[in-house]
């Protein structure tokens, strides 16, 4: 057992230091490729503005995507699931207590019957 030892699971091994080394090597390779790129790029000129079919670029705060707009496709695709699961979280304490008592009863039946 040493500080640099690998973590063993019985079927595999994990050593974060090796991973970090590989990560550093990858970063160096990326840097080398990047450093050989186009050098005439000028920050702050029209080279850095996006091309939106010739339209003027809107202000930055007007195009910020707010949190509620993210993953619309995911929740829409799982609409059937969410329509059932969200109403269960009713906020009603009576429901909370019933879920707790119901689960207790179910576990009790399973444990006593199967034991």
């Amino acid at each position, binding site marked *: 057992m040493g500080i640099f030892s690998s973590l063993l699971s*019985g079927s595999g091994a994990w050593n974060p230091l090796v*991973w970090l080394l590989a990560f550093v090597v990858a970063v160096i390779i990326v840097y080398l490729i990047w450093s050989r790129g186009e050098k005439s790029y000028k920050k702050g000129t029209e080279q850095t503005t996006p091309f939106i079919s010739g339209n003027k670029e809107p202000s930055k705060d007007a195009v910020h995507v707010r949190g509620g707009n993210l993953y619309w496709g995911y929740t829409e695709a799982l609409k059937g699931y969410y329509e059932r699961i969200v109403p*269960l979280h009713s906020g009603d*304490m009576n429901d909370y207590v019933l879920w707790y008592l119901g689960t207790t009863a179910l576990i009790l039946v399973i444990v006593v019957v199967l034991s």
Partner: protein
Amino acid sequence: MIWDVIVAQSPALLIAIPLLFAFFCPFIGKISNMVRNIWVAVGMALTSAVALILAWDVYAFGTRIYVFGAQAANYALPLDSGGIPVRIIFTVDPMSALMQIIAAITGLAIILYSISSEQRHSGLSSFYTLYLLMITGILGMVSTGDLFNFFVFLEIVSIASAGLIAYRVDKGLAVEAALKYFVLSTIGALAILFAIGIYYGEYNALNIAMIASRMQFTVLDQIALVLIMAALAMKCGSVPMHFWTPDAYSMAPSSITAMLVVASQASLYGIFRVLFTLYNVTLNTATVGWIVIVLGVLSMVIGVTMAIPQKNVKRLMAYHAISQTGYMLLGVGVGLAVLGNQPLMDSFGYTAMEGGIFHIINHAMYKGLLFLTAGAVFFRIGTYNLNKMGGLGHSMKWTMVFFIIGALAIAGIPPFNGFASKWMIYESVYVFNPILAIIAMVVSILTLASFVKVFHSIFMGPKLPEYEGVKEAPLPMLIGMGILAVIVILFGIFPETVVSTLIVPAAHALTNQGAYIAAVLGGV
């Protein structure tokens, strides 16, 4: 000499120090706010120091028992007691010590954070008194070897937590959340008390080691097991008894939410202690193991899928806390399902348990960190609504860095600590049942997706006009977050050292019922 006394009396000091500091806190608060802040910080620092000293002693020299009121600290069975440990006994094995370490580190980081985060509020003497009582209760729950004593400490945690959840009132919403938590906690505690009554009626004892040594697993024992297991599963936020968690976690001050995570884990510890130490192989391990696994899988899946559409950052994180609890239940549940089958335990059972237990400490660190970052953002902009946030990475760079560390850790991205424990769970659970491991991995991917959303919503994008003057969080809050962030990184980079030093002894202490019983009943 003094060192020896401290080490010898550390189990008692662990409870006495925070109780003492809690008791005097309102009086000290009359002097000045600064003196009171120093008082609570010193109290928490001393408590943490004692917890770490005791943990070191346990890991170095084995299980410690401490008999309150006896002639000697290990005098568990007085000659005139009829062979029954009649006094309150603390039994601190490596599993208890691990939980103490979690409470000590998190508690200290949070108190440093709270000194800044709560400075604008009134009633802080009561706040810190309740906070120290909560710490007392958590440390007591994980240290005691007596079931009735466990119930008492559980109640201390519940009462203190309910008071702290309601602390900010917030037009009655926080009070409502606290009421829900308190009603459910009280019903759960009554179930636990009823179960303890069953044990006492059957075995004439309240001591865990004593009951374990006499355990018959009769129908009454089965009823008692279910009552305790369901109540504590509800207390740790396991699906489908998790409904109070998002309400309470989102309405409590962020520093308290981070501590509620630790309190939930103390309940999780209670489940593991009852299953492994009290019952062990006397119960139908496959059946009960699968019940724990199913609770874990439900928690993982429903927790993460409910988190994704949330718009309140703390509510979102609360659902993730439920999801992460599922990993712990899954890992330890697999260990329980094969308990008694030594070849399977050696093959993957111990690794699954170690992964689950490692995830407890990892989760306390990164989830605590994430709740503190959410609190830092709220401290500066006054909202938890993700739709109203954006561009804060320009002005809160350190908070953003801490958030990234916590988010990558919870999503199981290497080399952070969450990856190491999840990797152990994946590898071992895959051997037991590949479908369970695949579900766990998919949940991790969804967790990453969810935190990408949070990161984008809070920190990315242009600086918004309404947050033009926002500054970085105050230094004490950054220090609190920094302590947890450093641990997240170190535990991730040196997982083998943590696992072999802290986790393996804890897992083996949990499964070795005979050693636990011998530590108490052998100490005549």
